[in-house]
């Protein structure tokens, strides 16, 4: 019988990586299904969307403490993600440039 897909043509590492991603996707899907019945319970009740922003002079003192760490965490997360991503680009660029220089040398050597 003729096979629809010839997996022998796909490198082994690649099929492993694809399987790993498929497993991760399956786990995320299962978590979503398990979480769905509790989604209604998580909906806040009796709360409507604000119509606009109204300025206020002071925040009550008891409210400032719990909000501040969350606010700080939000700004730190943004910075960490931005700098982390920039660092990955820089690393990948360095590696490709090194490979490019090696390839150029090989071209020059073959040409000579």
């Amino acid at each position, binding site marked *: 019988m003729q096979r629809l897909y010839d997996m022998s043509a796909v490198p082994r590492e690649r099929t492993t990586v694809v399987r790993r991603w498929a497993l991760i996707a399956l786990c995320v899907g299962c978590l979503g299904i398990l979480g769905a019945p509790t989604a209604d319970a*998580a909906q806040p009740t009796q709360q409507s969307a*604000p119509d606009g*922003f109204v300025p206020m002079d002071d925040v009550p003192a008891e*409210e400032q403490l719990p909000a501040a760490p969350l606010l700080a965490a*939000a700004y730190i997360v943004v910075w960490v993600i931005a700098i982390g991503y920039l660092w990955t*680009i820089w690393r990948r660029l360095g590696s490709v440039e090194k490979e490019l220089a090696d*390839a150029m040398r090989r071209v020059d050597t073959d040409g000579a």
Partner: protein
Amino acid sequence: MNKRAFPALIGLSLVFFGVAPILIVRAPNEQEMGLIQKIFYFHFASWMAMYLAILVLGISSALFLFRRKPSADRLAVAAAEAAVVFGLMGLITGPLWAVKSWGVWWTWDARTTMAMILELILVAYLILRAYGGPGSDRLAAGLGMFAMANLPFLYVSTEIWRTIHPPTSVVPQLPVDFGLPLWWSVAGFIVLCLALLTARARLEEERATLDRLYLALEDE
């Protein structure tokens, strides 16, 4: 991509991000939400940067599909990655605000669910590009255009569906005290997005050059 553009853009974004905390600290506290509302200045701005990246992704994908421009494809890959990064910022800062304002980290609200789906579409694009093999570039371009088609729905989701997420219509009506730090932050994120796009697109261009060199070496 212009090699000089990246340092200029990253320098400009540093200026924006250096001044933004001063403006945000000086901005008044919001009456209903209190101090936690200040997350909004980076949260909204990160979504705006994501929108820009998705627009670039969609347009570049269309150019690649219909005009067969390889440079457009390289820009699309860069834009998809940047969109995932800014989307991740939005998806993390949102729950940090929600846990204080709504009392829960996450709710399957129309806006939050759509944002999550859009992020997953972009992740799917990147996985397709990484492991899809030959021909996946055209398939991914279709996915990129599909991601762009989702943008208007995401933007108006708070207006057309029943949702507890603050509506987008609030933004144009903001008083100057709230508006200045917001639009300043948006400008900073847009410039940062352009800087990341420039750097990432350069990486793709160098990879393409390397591929051409290897092909030339094989032919010899």
